[in-house]
């Protein structure tokens, strides 16, 4: 999903960089969507995914632990520790969970922006 969010991406301000704990996540409200935003300080990177864990449909990923597996950044759901890649959203735990939707993130002047499909694509999204 993130790959097609290029020309048609619109950016909204999620929060300030200081609002997100180091090496942890928060949940961002965007219209009726919940987005998990991660401040991966250790890698100097930001990531955003859907907040919903596809395993048991729980709004919980923002409260999970982030980490890496063979260098690939990942998020572990607090409920059953299923892990998902923060790069492409695929499930890394060997279960047949759906992949997560990934959102692009950028920071400017102490603010965090998350990219979502521009308005005309929002319905399909």
């Amino acid at each position: 999903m993130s790959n097609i969010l290029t020309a048609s991406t619109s950016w909204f301000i999620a929060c300030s960089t200081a609002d997100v704990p180091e090496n942890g996540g928060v949940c961002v409200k965007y219209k009726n969507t919940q987005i998990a935003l991660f401040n991966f300080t250790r890698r100097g990177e930001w990531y955003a995914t859907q907040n919903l864990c596809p395993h048991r449909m729980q709004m919980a990923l923002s409260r999970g632990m982030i980490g890496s597996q063979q260098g690939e950044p990942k998020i572990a759901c607090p409920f059953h520790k299923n892990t998902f890649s923060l790069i492409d959203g695929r499930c890394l735990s060997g279960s047949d969970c759906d992949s997560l939707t990934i959102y692009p993130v950028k920071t400017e002047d102490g603010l965090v922006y998350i990219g979502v499909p521009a308005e005309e694509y929002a319905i399909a999204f």
Partner: protein
Amino acid sequence: MKVVVIGNGMVGYKFCEKLLSKGAGSVQLSVFGEETRPAYDRVHLSEYFSGKTADELSMAPAGWYAANGITLYTGDPIQSIDPTNKTVHSFHGTTAPYDYLVLATGSSAFVPPVPGVEKQGVFVYRTIEDLEMISSFAKGAKTGAVIGGGLLGLEAAKALLDLGIRDTHVIEFADRLMPRQIDDAGSKMLKAKLENLGLKIHTGKNTAQILGNDAITGMQFTDETSIHTDILIISAGIKPRDELAKLCGLETGQRGGIVVNEHLQTSDPAIFAIGECALFQGMIYGLVAPGYEMADVVATRLTGGSKQFAPYDMSTKLKLIGIDVASFGNPFVPQAEGRTVVFEDTMKGIYKRINLTHDGKQLLGGILVGDAEAYNMLLQTCKNRIVLPPNPEDMILGTRGGSGADAGAGVAGLPDDALICSCENISKKDVCDAVSSGCETVDSIKKCTKAGTGCGGCVPMLKDLMVHTMKAQGKYIRNVLCEHFGYSRQELYDVVKLKELKSYEDVLGMLGNGDGCELCKPAVSSILASLWNEMILKKGNDTAQDSNDRFLANIQKGGTYSVVPRIPGGEISPEKLIVIGQIAQKYNLYTKITGGQRIDMFGAHLNDLPQIWKELIDAGFESGHAYGKALRTVKSCVGSTWCRFGLHDSVSYAIRIEERYRGLRAPHKLKSAVSGCIRECAEAKSKDFGIIATEKGWNLFVCGNGGSKPQHALLLASDIDSETCIRYIDRFLMFYIKTADPLTRTATWLNKMEGGIDYLRNVVVNDSLGIAAQLEAEMQLLVDNYQCEWKEVVDSPELQKRFAHFVNAPREKDPTAQFESMRDQKRAVDWK
């Protein structure tokens, strides 16, 4: 010296390898192979269908032969041998002189003389070319059949399944499957398992003709029945390739095979025969291991050594379509020659048979179907004539109850010359020597000894031998946290303490690598808490906590939390009960009494947690640490203050214990209880540490738990006074905290401890390690540093900020958290 090898199969290749390894410096070695590719692993041929490439199956890389000075002719079969002039002549016109000639021509598939075998769609199963042809023809096939229910036939059936032909028949002429390896009962079990996988098995069936015009359409049997099939693989046995030998006048057997003596010499002393083409004492050896042994015998002789070939053990273990089948020694000992023990479980599809001498002291052989885990031990016990334990049936059943010793002595009990890898002929001593000289992983043992590189069946034994050898050398077996830390929990605990590290990031930065993960983060956080007992949400450690610790509450279905205030010993005043009721009402929480004599309030939104706790703390409650791998509760019976049987005041003692160890973080949760008399109403023996009153004092029990594997606590000390009891608990808990693996309860920790409860008692009670004073001091530090975590959050606006669902709408609750009503309360909506 010129040596020519005819045949570049597994055994021909192995001969070259053995000859080189024995230092055949002056030998000029030439190899002629009929196939176009160099030798490959025919044993694992069926893996070609499950994704292995021809290259991966290759015995040696293409450059290996040239690099070792071997002249290899592929796709160039020898046409004739001239024993008088000692030369061979190849199809492409090469004439090569030899001093010694080695025939490793192998075998071809035996095709029974059934009318119609020449039709399209009828194949044999022998070479990669066969497989390629089968593979391309099978694309249009819906049903398949295999003639032959032996080892190779079932391999071929697996190949058809792998090719996507779900409807596959196996036709066996004998009245059971694998007639050379297993008995009727074993065959029945195997048949049932194979039929479960969708194979249709026909035994006692004789093919009369193959139906169809140009291509096969079906098969007709002698009993007048017939089946439809689109493809047929014939795998009914092997035929030794002895035509060259016959042509040049060497002696061959009536039913094929080149006659050899114990040196593998043919009737011409300059010509040897090895592998499936050789007929030794009237027998063709159709397995790879004896073929390798033959290669070794000839290579040894040609390099000046002496070795003879002896009748070879045909024990075998294999996985057929995921089903273990093994037979060893003499699988079919008749009644007159011994006794049998048979175990049959038709639920799980397991059949085991062992044959014993009449006196029950020695193992003669046996059969395993469905579960062959015991194969290596049984084979070694059989081959080495190890005297059996008093209950030999334990070898296939495992010990059942009682305080019995191990069923066998395990790998430690095997003699040095016990053969571990029969494919490569590697003994126990070879493996142990390799481990001693530094091969401390299974992969390095494989590389260095070649053990486990054939069928792979001995790999579990290699691992056992490695662990055994390393332990015998006093080496520590690495048991690391995860990919980010090369330390065990115990090692990490010591190093973190030594370096006085206080945050997860510091620990990862100084002692680990990468970015951490959900395994090492909680483990390191637990170590930090056990060492320093600092507020777990400070110093950036909040995001290294498991979710429950991070929000100081238990996450429940739907993403809301439950709240458990501490109620020490289960004693609570009416005023406090009322406060809990009021808070539950105000925040609409479901209430329930827990198993540990406390009250749990469910369904709290993340945003409400700080306010709920402010009200609880104002009323005199503190955190119950129900969310942590920490001391949970010390349950008590009412004790001598009310109970007519009570010996001591169990409630007061439980409160004292709970308040001493509250907030203590450990590798796993800790539960305790105090009972006021032997009636044990507090169920103290099911706890990590439990205390039971006696006439003279207290009995202290440790390492019990309920849960999925209930285990009673064991007596550590008896009739001790209250002060001594607490000192022992201090030592016990600190010893556990310092040495247990992550997420290991005390019961499991003790079960893994060498010496068990006696060792633990020596450490705790007799101070055998001389660390008792240190353990007590460390515990006292933790006790003195205790603070209620929730009070710190309630007092800190900065910490409270994290208790919001939406970072950009902190007052909004999670709209997706839904409840239903049940028995006048609420419950979480079931998840999908």
